[in-house]
């Protein structure tokens, strides 16, 4: 069983967390801190297994991690998982992230997984992860299958978007142009006043 998947950066800032066992929010943060503390002080050329996370698991549990550029990918697993298998899986997931989320950075591939991409698409990363690991167990390891399923779901989301999504996309394009705070002011000023007068129809 995989008990948790944690992705955080070199400063211990969480970028994605997935617990397959309930922990309260503050406990989750504590676990992240502890894990970061354990992992970050290790050199890059030592082994990728770590025992002794006291907050999560106990003696049966291991931390298996990989460090890519600015990100740590940490899996907390018990003895039913193959250590080397999980290491492969982490690599696999990183690869999917490249393929599915950061399509444009495919050529750079996973040795350069960009932290920013991950931050801004946390939800998408979650959706990919869900196709690989479900409820703490490895669901699928066939690369093509995973990519296909994720693609299909994204397509479905796009087709649903239709009318309502189009303006949103336009707006986000505008926003990405880094205009100052004007749009929000408009929001408060004009539209909110106008709309209530229309709605009685």
């Amino acid at each position: 069983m995989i008990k948790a998947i944690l992705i955080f950066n070199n400063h211990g800032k969480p970028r994605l967390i997935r617990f397959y066992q309930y922990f309260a929010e503050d406990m989750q943060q504590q676990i992240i801190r502890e894990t970061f503390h354990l992992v970050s002080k290790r050199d890059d050329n030592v082994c990728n297994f770590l025992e002794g996370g006291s907050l999560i698991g106990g003696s049966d549990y291991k931390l298996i991690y990989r460090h890519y550029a600015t990100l740590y990918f940490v899996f907390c697993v018990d003895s039913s998982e193959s250590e080397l298998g999980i290491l492969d899986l982490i690599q696999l997931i990183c690869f999917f992230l490249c393929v599915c989320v950061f399509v444009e950075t495919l050529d750079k591939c996973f040795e350069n997984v960009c932290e920013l991409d991950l931050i801004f698409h946390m939800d998408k990363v979650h959706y990919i992860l869900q196709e690989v690991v479900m409820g703490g167990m490895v669901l699928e390891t066939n690369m093509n299958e995973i990519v296909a399923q994720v693609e299909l779901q994204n397509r479905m989301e796009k087709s649903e978007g239709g009318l309502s999504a189009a303006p949103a996309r336009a707006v986000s394009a505008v926003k990405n142009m880094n205009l100052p705070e004007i749009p929000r002011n408009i929001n408060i000023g004009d539209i909110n006043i106008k709309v209530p007068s229309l709605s009685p129809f």
Partner: protein
Amino acid sequence: MALKIVKGSIDRMFDKNLQDLVRGIRNHKEDEAKYISTCIDEIKQELKQDNIAVKANAVCKLTYLQMLGYDVSWAAFNIVEVMSSSKFTYKRIGYLAASQCFHEGTDVIMLTTNQIRKDLSSPHQYDTGVALTGLSCFVTPDLARDLANDIMTLMSHTKPYIRKKAVLIMYKVFLKYPESLRPAFPRLKEKLEDPDPGVQSAAVNVICELARRNPKNYLSLAPLFFKLMTSSTNNWVLIKIIKLFGALTPLEPRLGKKLIEPLTNLIHSTSAMSLLYECVNTVIAVLISLSSGMPNHSASIQLCVQKLRILIEDSDQNLKYLGLLAMSKILKTHPKSVQSHKDLILQCLDDKDESIRLRALDLLYGMVSKKNLMEIVKKLMLHVDKAEGTTYRDELLTKIIDICSQSNYQYITNFEWYISILVELTRLEGTRHGHLIASQMLDVAIRVKAIRGFAVAQMATLLDNAHLLTGNTQRNGICEVLYAAAWICGEFSEHLEDPMQTLEAMLRPKVATLPGHIQAVYVQNAAKLFATVLRKHEGETDSHAAQETSQLLIDRLPLFVQSANLEVQERASCILQLVKYIQKLQQKKVEVAEEVTALFAGELNPVAPKAQKKVPVPEGLDLDAWINKPPSESESEDEKPKAVFAKEEPKHSRSRHTEVDEKELARRREARKREQANNPFYIKASPSSQKVYDAPGVEHIPVVQIDLSVPLKVPGMPMSDQYLKLEEERRQKEKAERKKEKKKKREKRGKERKADSGPESEEDIAPAHQVDIVTEEMPENALPSDDDDKDPNDPHKALDIDLDKPLADSEKLPVRTHRPEVLKSPAEDRVNESIPQETKKRSGKEKKEKKKGKEKDRKRSKEEKKKKKHKEVEEELLESHPEEAVQSEETKEAATPPTSTSAEEETAPSSAAAVDTSSAAAPESEPDEPKDAEPEDTKSSKHKKKKQKKEKEEKEKKKKKRHHHHHHHSNAGGEDSVQNGTVEEEEPLPPMSNYFLLAENSYIKMMKEDADQVYDIQGNHQDESKVVVSVIFENKSDSFLKSMEFNVLDSLNSKLQRPEGAGAHDSLTVPFQLPPGISNEAHFVFSVQSIVMPQKLKGTLTFIVKSDESSTHEKLDFKLHFTCTSYLITTPCYL
């Protein structure tokens, strides 16, 4: 409406989306918390809007904030709203948020049941998929119970995408709702051979998880897995299967033998390191499970060790780590094959990677021998000095102690060296393991008598320099050592050179800063030292010194009397008064030393840990039986006996004795032995091998005096190193000596061999000073294994279910109902239901059930009819071919496939019950065609048949030869059948051990079955239900028992069902007679009004005892208990 949508999307245009939130947070690094709190306010506004898109966006942002550690449980309801959106986009967001922050305590979860059910049966596979994924994270026992059936249906979905998810989630469902395991298991097993590799892999995954916790229930799947292993090419699946085999082999060595070959082939052929590693691991597990030392397996061991060596030598740290990990598993059973790689392992000790060093440390445990122990420990001590982090250093410390103390200090040849090592270890600052060192000191000092003098000297030094240990930090764990030091000095004070000085050191004002329990030991042992000092000075004419000591105590003890710690206070004030009294006596020139030393006389042997637990319970003693009437449930829950016994230090409570007057001691010992002999509860000592050697080594080794000006740090070389040198010299010398007087030596070695179990070569090294290790006392017939380490809260315990048993009616999964809470008659429910996606099998069952429901009455009568008919047929048969009747019955049973379909099982228990009912109650006349009865009969389960058969047999017997009794008459007697089940051998009875004694006298014994109370709802009487009680009557006398009549005093709630026309107080005739030594079973039906009331019914059994000359009437009273739970156990679930 359209406008509303437009409005919504316009609103949305200017709401922050997730990306904006993230960007905002990054731009507000200095006041992040403030920024986020404004964002949360915005989100709250957004959640209030009607537009689902806005809500979904807000929930998405909340998911991000949750990751940052913000509690978002307040939005749980909004999350549910988003989950129930019809659009996949939003639904996905909702489920994601739910899976991140819902848990069992979330109250809105119960609102989701129907939504999830709807999603599960959605025509879009991704809706279903998203629901399954979400559910896997927040499934609760309630959800699991309500949705188990839906998920089970999905396991046969047409899309493999859904199938694999449904299969995987079943594991979570099993954990939360263990009752679902048995009904779902057959289908899970089917999925092992699913055409889609993903589904197959998921099924393997689930079964492996299940089997890991309760392997014995899955042994029957081994052939299937074996097939999969040889056919599958998916490494993930292979790894899982191989891991599973690793868990199964300890239970079935034959499996291991079969595995060796394919696994070795895999090891040779595979290129995947992960697979290779798992194969090696499992081969190791197999080798462990097979009795070690089998010659033909040494090749496999060699192969494993070889491959592991390659891993360890690899430059990849991960492989190195795993290699060491696996090596440590081999070490347990085949230490020799590992020992040959000692060089490699010692090399790993110097690795820069901490994880690898730790693993190598584990291995060291098995590497040591008498020869190299000192060297290895020296190396470790160097590491201790170098170690930077405290965790690693502490680990080293525990390992050093582990290595040295393993198997009763087997490898230690020089205990002075060991004591010095322990003393050196006390220099570690800030270690958590002070208590570990302390307990080692105590253990060695107590169990190795020869070392006491040296140990006491060392401990006195430690006490004298206590300020160095306590140091600056109060919570320094190392001060625990002082506990041991004080105790050893006090207990063995006769070895002290200058007890006065030690006493002085123990009463320094600084001591008051130590933790309470240590102070308490100080005070107590100060008293012991006081006794020693007194005795020392007694002989001298000068009583001045003794009086000075008393004065010292009287001066210093008040400090402890004021202690905040109760224990210290109590001991101090007690001893203070004692000393004051002694002082008075001293002033009168009375000799008191004798009396004072007597206070601490007597010696206790060390007792093995858990010795008390291992005393077997004497026969006939039931520890669980109530002595008094049990108090009400709720009270007993609250009380915890723990509170009564305050926290004590159990380890060190054996602390009063000084070796005094030998005669006195001998006398006492005698008295004690006599007392023990008479005391049945005393745990007798195992004969401890007390071999006393004259120690030639001790004189040779000068006790190194520690330079007190530089306390505990001998300049130049640590003192343990000096021992190392000495040891080498000694060995050289011994070797030379041995050459000279070989013959003499041999005699001695013969003696030594008793204690030594090490390999031949090691015996050459004689211990520096022979020591007698007092073995720990154990009860005589103690049980070696102890299973008390299991976690009682393990959720997997509930999944320890026998999967090969046929499914009982009561175990079916609840099918969805419109109002599942309301207890309705099954018939109504079933008529309302129609489940389109049910498989053929299921729908067949359904039909069956429906029929059963509708014709509830008819069936009962049918059953009776059938039974009657059966009897008739049977009797006819018997008349012609009495032997063949049984025969044919048996063949018929054998012909029925052992795995009867679930439809059959469905009806079995209830119909069986009905049959039983009819046997007890008088027959009612019903119109029914006999044709129906026949198929019904063949369908009933084995269990039922057995009952019938038994009855038949009995009848036959009765008819033919009343007085001849045969074994299988007693088959009904539960456990008896197991012992003498001669007839039933082809078909072993299902376990029937749940009978307990109802009443008993010299003639008859009544046993009631505990769990077989079938709670059966009648179709036409809304609330009346029935309980069938099976009672076994066993004739214990050697007379014939007949005319047994069973009667129970009815209560308001429960009534014994009597034949029509009988009065409310009439007895029921038991439908058989009992020849001597025979038992038989009868069933009595009670109608129960309310299932929420426990019942205690009084009853009597009257019978006639007929012996050769006379017959007497006898009576037996009994009480029947119906607890509420006994109604509940088999509450029917409707499928």
